């Protein structure tokens, strides 16, 4: 294999290995400041915290619901074309996907206001998000062709994909309303680096017995690919100015959007906690560096048709060119630069947690204890168990994941959370998260789908997150 091919292969799988969404281990892991990023209404007791720039939050996630690297490239003596045909072409369907996300926090900090019930957060992070559904009928057409598939329609809606990369600036308020309820809101400003989406395609390609000739081929298409920022990046690559182009766009030089995160924590009783959050309720308005492509119309052809004697009237007629012109006229492939709005993939989290066992001393700067009058002062329990729900809005409709978890605290020094998650990628996703507190230094690391570590190549889903923060509880 030539090096570029190897590189392509590695990049292809790595790119998809970089994408996913659910952060079930981090969610409601209140010892970690970044838990506020997925629930702005998290029950936090910090006086202030500051993430170490570039290291406070790194998360990479990947998901493939139908295929793993091992399925295709396992050294098992079988012919790769047979494996592709069996496991990909006909083994997957149009609802299978490759998807995911990455986030790198550039800056993240938070501090308690003069009113101790208010906790403010702010920062910025780079995020990339992409999803590609399995384009099954396109794959069948590409690998098998349309021969001997009379009357079988190839569904053009199987092309469904979207992706984006952006810098996100955010500022949030976490407010303790009373002893039971904490609410949070975060405003976001999205500075887009690039975006592409092709999610509302319709149409078919079909070969039938012809009316006149042997076969008729019909294409009926209503397809669109919208892009923003890609042409500028291509030019920047040619000019060697990729870095400055991305930096400029990341800091308001490209297309902009706005969004909001909402969240709450509600203490049902002393030991039971209900939480929920709605993230990335927002959109980006793309008006700069736009290039959209459309294919719209219907055409049926049966080859060149010569009906004599009329067809002989013009001896210079070019029937082939007429046919090509007709098809291009009936199903024009066009470009435009129309502005468009791209909605963010909105995410919903919810959880119910039951705390039990011994109490852990609260580190908040207050008179704390079991009977504290404020939930910031409320003592933590050694054990927590519960369930979580995660839903994300995707081009083919919402995707859901259910998680059961157990969290164990070892004083104020260490906390471990383990999760079991069921979603479309895996029924055996076991995750583990660890938060270590050494004085003011907080280190956390988490990974999921740990059972797949026995053979990473056979994994359908993998993710990890890690980060480093400085935290103060304000105690003298």
């Amino acid at each position, binding site marked *: 294999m030539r090096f570029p091919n190897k590189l392509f292969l590695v990049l292809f799988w790595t790119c998809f290995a970089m994408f996913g969404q659910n952060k079930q281990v981090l969610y409601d892991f209140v010892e970690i400041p970044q838990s506020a990023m997925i629930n702005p209404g998290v029950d936090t007791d910090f006086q202030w915290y500051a993430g170490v720039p570039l290291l406070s939050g790194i998360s990479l996630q990947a998901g493939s619901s139908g295929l793993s690297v091992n399925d295709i*490239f396992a050294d098992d003596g079988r012919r790769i*074309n047979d494996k592709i045909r069996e496991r990909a072409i006909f083994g997957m369907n149009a609802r299978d996907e490759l998807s995911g996300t990455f986030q790198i926090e550039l800056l993240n900090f938070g501090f308690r206001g003069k009113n101790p019930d208010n906790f403010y957060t702010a920062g910025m992070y780079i995020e990339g998000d992409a999803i590609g559904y399995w384009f099954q009928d396109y794959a069948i057409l590409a690998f098998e062709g349309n021969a001997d598939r009379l009357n079988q329609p190839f569904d053009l809606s199987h092309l469904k994909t979207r992706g984006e990369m952006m810098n996100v600036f955010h500022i949030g308020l976490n407010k303790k309303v009373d002893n039971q309820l904490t609410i949070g809101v975060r405003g976001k400003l999205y500075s887009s680096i690039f975006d592409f989406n092709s999610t509302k395609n319709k149409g078919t390609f079909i070969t039938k017995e012809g009316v006149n000739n042997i076969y008729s081929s019909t294409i009926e298409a209503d397809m669109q690919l919208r892009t923003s920022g890609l042409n500028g990046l291509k030019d920047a690559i040619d000019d060697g100015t990729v870095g400055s182009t991305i930096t400029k766009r990341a800091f308001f030089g490209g297309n902009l959007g706005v969004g909001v995160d909402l969240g709450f924590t509600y203490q049902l009783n002393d030991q039971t906690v209900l939480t929920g959050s709605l993230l990335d309720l927002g959109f980006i308005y793309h008006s700069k560096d736009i290039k959209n492509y459309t294919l719209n119309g219907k055409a049926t052809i049966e*080859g060149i048709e010569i009906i004599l004697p009329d067809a002989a009237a013009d001896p210079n007629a070019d*029937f082939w060119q007429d046919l090509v012109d007709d098809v291009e006229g009936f199903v024009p492939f066009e470009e435009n630069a129309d502005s468009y709005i791209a909605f963010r993939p909105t995410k919903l989290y919810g959880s119910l947690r039951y705390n039990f066992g011994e109490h852990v001393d609260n580190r908040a700067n207050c008179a704390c204890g079991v009977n504290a009058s404020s939930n910031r002062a409320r003592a933590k329990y050694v054990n927590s168990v519960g369930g979580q729900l995660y839903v994300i809005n995707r081009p083919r409709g919402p995707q859901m994941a259910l998680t059961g978890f157990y969290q164990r605290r070892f004083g104020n020094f260490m906390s471990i959370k383990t999760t079991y998650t069921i979603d479309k990628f895996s029924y055996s996703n076991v995750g583990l998260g660890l938060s270590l507190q050494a004085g003011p230094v907080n280190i956390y690391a988490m990974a999921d789908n740990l059972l797949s570590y026995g053979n990473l190549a056979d994994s359908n889903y993998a993710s990890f997150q890690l980060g480093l923060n400085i935290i103060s509880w304000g105690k003298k």
Partner: protein
Amino acid sequence: MRQVRPVFGIAMIKFIKSILLCTLSCLTLLSCIEDQDFNQYDEIGVTPTLEASILYVEAPEALVNATSGANVFSRNFNFDAFSSDVFAKRVLDGTITYIVENTSSKALEVTIELLDVDNNVLDVEIIPVDPSPMAMLQRDVAYGSSGRSIDIIKNTSSIRVTANNLGDNTSTSNEPDPKIILKSSGKFRVNVK
């Protein structure tokens, strides 16, 4: 104070490096990967077989009767599909199918010639056609490994169709709307990768 900050910074960087090193080491130690053979990528073959109609010619019996002499019709039709780069550079093998239907009272000879860009004849197919009633006549011409040279297809730029009347030009068929029809389609395997 100025000396303390760089020392603190260096210590911090070392600390961060240690954490990253430990994390990656743990992940590496804990994870396994079974043997993968990425050289199989070279063996991936994407060779779909594509099928579509090529040319349809229809001539009514009245046209045959109205023509003096044997040659009813002869004409070149531009057909760039085969010689276009996207097809010619990828085609491996395939078949052209001709179907002739004759409901006229004439015996005919239909000749199909594949021509290159300079109108040189690359291939000829002659199909004698009986007068009606006749069975539908089908002829499959293979190109590539088990047939004629695939270069014929790659270089075909136009198709010449000639129909010669082997009968009289006065008789009429009892069939409704008598005519002679030539249908054709191609079925080719192409190498996408």
